[in-house]
């Protein structure tokens, strides 16, 4: 069976972003971009399923600007067999991405789509669930364990207060949590091999989807700054401050 893995190009998680002075967004010019960490986990999981023989082909997909090709090459260096770029310069929101992915699912007919649980830029945590709804497929979000057997996928999920296990009929949608796996480092030979793998480019128009954003961002501002704190000399001084100044103990 085939697995589809959507990957997103985002500002690298180590970068501390800055809000633009005109409040139209965050400044991402000349900032290091990488694959969204949860998507790396998704590619790794699909690759492991393939290595176990449970999956025949892993197709990585990315939606966005031309540079998303680099993200797809990374996915292919981890283990994806080929890539598809849905190229557009339009700002993409989760509902639009879910519709683009649905069109690709209709075309590619995968049995499983593995996505990251959220992208670390918009922190939306929506796309997988929306795609599941559009396809009328079952979903298992925040997966920390995935097992494929007998036309079903059994997923352990991280929920508030503990873990929950669900069994879904295939085809299904799974979104990854941090603890699902430790993504492998891409090696130079695999990076070279990934350059030769097939990468197709389509447009939203080819897929018959209007990707225009529907939520309007009025402004982006700095979060309220905390007032500067102080360092105390010892435990006694700390207890004194907590009792008499902050009055929290």
């Amino acid at each position, binding site marked *: 069976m085939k697995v589809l893995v959507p990957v997103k190009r985002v500002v690298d998680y*180590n970068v501390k*972003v800055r*809000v633009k002075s005109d409040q139209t967004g*965050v400044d991402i010019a000349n900032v290091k971009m990488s694959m969204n960490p*949860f998507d790396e986990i998704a590619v790794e999981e699909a690759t492991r399923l393939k290595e176990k023989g449970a999956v025949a082909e892993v197709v990585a997909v990315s939606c966005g600007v031309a540079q998303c090709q680099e993200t797809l090459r990374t996915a292919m260096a981890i283990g994806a067999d080929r890539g598809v770029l849905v190229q557009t310069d339009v700002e993409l929101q*989760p*509902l639009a991405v*879910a519709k683009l992915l649905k069109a690709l699912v209709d075309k590619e007919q995968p049995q499983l789509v593995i996505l990251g649980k959220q992208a*670390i*830029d918009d*922190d939306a*945590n*929506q*796309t997988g*669930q*929306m795609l*599941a*709804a*559009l396809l*009328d*497929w*079952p*979903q298992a*979000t*925040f997966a*920390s364990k995935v097992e494929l057997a007998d036309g079903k996928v059994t997923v352990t999920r991280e*929920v508030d*207060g*503990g873990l*929950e*296990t*669900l*069994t*879904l*009929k295939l085809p299904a949608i799974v979104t990854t*949590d*941090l603890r699902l796996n430790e993504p492998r480092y891409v090696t130079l030979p695999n990076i070279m091999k990934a350059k030769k793998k097939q990468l197709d480019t389509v447009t939203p128009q080819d897929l018959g989807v209007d990707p225009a954003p*529907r*939520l*309007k*961002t*009025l402004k*982006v*501002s*700095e*979060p309220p700054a*905390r007032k500067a*704190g*102080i*360092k*105390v000399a*010892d*435990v*006694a001084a*700390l*207890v004194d401050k*907590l009792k008499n100044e*902050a009055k*929290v*103990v």
Partner: protein
Amino acid sequence: MTVLVIAEHDNRALNGATLNAIAAAATLAMPVHVLVAGAEAGAAAEAAARVAGVDKVLLAQAPQLADGLAENLAAQAAAVAAGYSHVFLAATAQGKGVAPRVAALLDVAQVSDVIEVLAPDTFKRPIYAGNAIATVKSGYPVIVATIRPTAFDPAAAEGGNAAVEAIEAVAGAGLSRFVSREIAVSERPDLGSARAVVSGGRGLGSADNFKLLDPLAEKLGAALGASRAAVDAGYAPNDWQVGQTGKIVAPDLYVAVGISGAIQHLAGMKDSKVIVAINKDGDAPIFGVADYGLVGDLFEAVPALTSSLP
């Protein structure tokens, strides 16, 4: 114009975060209805009817709604949502799983993790791990949103007197099956709603050393939390993780012990009222957000702090 809040519950009682979502709904100054979907969830519906500010409770009961499966719960919510201008859920694991599914069924965008309601169609929400705040406006006839619980004071659990109306349950999709749930048992307050939180990081060094935090948490009546490093190292269970990808907390007092303060951790706790940091590295980023910082060995400072507290 009416708000529908999708309740999270265990069939007997409401989840605390639902009270925060009801409070956010109340800021719209519109009637507030609550949907309780479950199996034998009458007690939860009664509890919802007693919440101050709730005008009506819709109770949908069926076996397929028993375990909060996203497919069935979303289908139920979407079937009811047609008559509403807003559908709110708490931004919990369940709410985050269900809300986008409801939105897509209604073919509308969803607003995640609302921290402030500016107008019926305009909301503030954090992006980039809380390093920026976006103000977004929805042009859709139905606005589906999840509410960050720590950003709204909970509605009073008593004082309301709403009617409970039984509604027809939507047939189950039969796509997924609940197998099991392992909920960690803890005598400590719930991390998401605790008044005080004591969190440990990699600096603790081992799961055994993490027990050092127990007496301190005991004295403060605090929940225990952890950084991702501590969770990954196996010092603390996953559901203790505070941060962008774990729980978002905003207690009156947050004590960070042996936590350096990575961006992803700060995203989960920097709205706490008072932050205390205990770390031996005086340059650790945690001191940039701490109201009171103590540079020193946590193995001496934590027991000393515990014994000096009343």
